[in-house]
């Protein structure tokens, strides 16, 4: 996979050098007689050197990504989506469709699955990979029936005492007339109260973009994890910029100021854990990403499933109750008179 993001340009240059060097080495190997002794070894060493350099450069680039750069990674078109994770993590999966009221929203998909031998309900936003799928999924921007299907699946999990795993990756809930007609506000609101009271563990993982109410509608749970380069925000940086800076070009500033990265949010106690990504981002190695996530999910579920459900619910209530209390770490006591 090519390095194709703006801030990856130096890496892309290195990548091109590597590919040229590879061709050189290959050509030389085909006709070793044409080269001086040692020349071939030197060429191979140079190639290895370049490769090592790329790894180092990638590592250092990704170690100090700006929030706006993370936004680019979180939105990468090759980033793994919910269906990828399901396919790569679950031993068995059966999709449950439909809200039993109106339709089957492809922007949120999920079903029952076995994950490391445990029956779970897993669901998440699906942005879609190719054009056809993206259209079908409305680019992951879910409609009311998506949230209602999600709640139906979670009630299903509750009935069968399966834990729920939600994967969040959405720019924002659908903004159109149909969404309003069928009550996108009501659908999200009912999920918030429904998830707060669901009598089974809920583990939420922000895998890409956690965009506003559309993200929150499936991410009320016992623990919120975020992938290393994912973001979670009250409004998209572009939207925030166009209001607070009166120009959407200030999106990078908004991304910085609003504290939307996994690192910012862990620091502020709003999430429980960061899930490391493969070098250069999840999209560079889907299988490794899925393996890491599977391990993370498993150890979290092991802990959550061991708790009596009443304790779980009380802790879940307290988790949210504490956000923005005057005693909260984020609201300095001084400013709350």
């Amino acid at each position, binding site marked *: 996979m090519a390095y194709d993001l703006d801030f990856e340009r130096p890496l892309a240059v290195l990548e091109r050098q590597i590919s040229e060097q590879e061709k050189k080495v290959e050509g030389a190997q085909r006709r070793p007689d044409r080269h001086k002794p040692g020349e071939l070894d030197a060429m191979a060493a140079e190639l290895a050197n370049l490769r090592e350099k790329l790894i180092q450069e990638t590592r250092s680039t990704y170690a100090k990504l700006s929030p706006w750069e993370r936004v680019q990674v979180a939105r990468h078109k090759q980033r793994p989506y919910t269906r990828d994770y399901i396919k790569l993590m679950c031993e068995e999966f059966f999709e449950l469709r439909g809200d039993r009221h109106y339709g089957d929203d492809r922007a949120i998909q999920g079903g029952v699955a076995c994950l490391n031998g445990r029956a779970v309900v897993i669901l998440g936003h699906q942005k879609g990979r190719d054009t056809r799928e993206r259209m079908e999924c409305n680019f992951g921007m879910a409609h009311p029936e998506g949230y209602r299907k999600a709640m139906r699946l979670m009630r299903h999990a509750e009935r069968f005492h399966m834990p729920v795993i939600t994967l969040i990756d959405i720019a924002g809930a659908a903004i159109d007339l149909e969404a309003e007609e069928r009550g996108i506000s009501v659908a999200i609101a009912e999920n918030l109260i429904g998830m707060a009271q669901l009598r089974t563990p809920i583990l939420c993982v922000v895998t890409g973009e956690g965009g506003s109410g559309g993200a929150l509608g499936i991410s009320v749970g016992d623990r919120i994890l975020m992938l290393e380069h994912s973001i979670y*925000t009250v409004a998209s940086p572009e939207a925030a910029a166009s209001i607070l800076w009166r120009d959407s070009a200030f999106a990078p500033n908004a991304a910085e100021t*609003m504290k939307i990265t996994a690192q910012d949010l862990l620091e502020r106690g709003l999430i429980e854990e960061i899930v490391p990504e493969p070098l250069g981002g999840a999209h560079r190695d889907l299988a490794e990403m899925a393996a890491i996530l599977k391990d993370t999910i498993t150890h979290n579920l092991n802990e959550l499933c061991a708790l009596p459900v009443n304790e779980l619910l009380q802790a879940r209530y307290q988790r949210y109750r504490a956000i923005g209390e005057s005693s909260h770490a984020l609201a300095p006591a001084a400013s709350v008179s």
Partner: protein
Amino acid sequence: MKDETESALSNVNSNGAHPDGRVKALPQNLAVKCPNCREVLVGKDWEKNFHICSKCGYHFRLSAPERIELLLDEGTFEEFAADLTSGDPLSFVSRSQPYRTKLETERANTGLTEAVVVGRGQIEGMPLVIVVMDFRFIGGSMGTIVGEKITRAIETAADERLPLLICSASGGARMQEGLLSLMQMAKTSAALGHLADVGCPYISLLTDPTTGGVSASFAFLGDVILAEPGALIGFAGPRVIEQAIHQKLPKDTNTADFVRAHGMIDDIVHRRDLRAVLGQLLRIYGQCMEVVTVESSAANE
């Protein structure tokens, strides 16, 4: 979420009102101009008429103190949690304007400490907990303190087994507090779950405008949901939707009529009837509340 409302607002008020929804009184408050039909109304009549245009029925926005005066029995309001004021958790600055300064300006302009006022009061002699948002204060946006005050009001209702009334007027979450604001949606909703468990009725009154994160959380979780005539109600404002879909919307999109027609609210109530309707609801639910609290406390053991 804020953007939606701000756009929506410029939409609603394109004919004369101040963009933050406050109506400019003409000199000495002798007369006000209706932003809907442009009629010039005599100030005293307009005030007696619940701030409604006598010509077209347009419901002017009310400040939190005006709303409280309108709804509660005189002298029964006891505010609580008034001392909670927003900090600046992200040290937020945009366009060289610190959020902290913005808060101070809003406090000075409105005389309020935040975009919501909460307290105990009575309607027709029946006690309740009341929450009133004020759109003048940063568009009624919900930051941590708004969420906190509302949550405390919900918990007070639950603890004291009182009915709860929330009058919403908000453009959504407060961007300047980032994800903390979004989480207030979850916090208030979870608290409402607790209130439902103990069997206290929650009446939600949607006033102009109720959008974004407020509409997608507590505002639409009422046991009974009422709206004022003509109020803008929805997830997104019509302008934002039109920009997103590149199409004109039907004229009534996301009005009180629209959400009633789509089954999202119970009724639209004219402002002059509000007290009577609330009184009736408190009487009806009052008859079952004693039963409920006894039984539910037994069930919870």
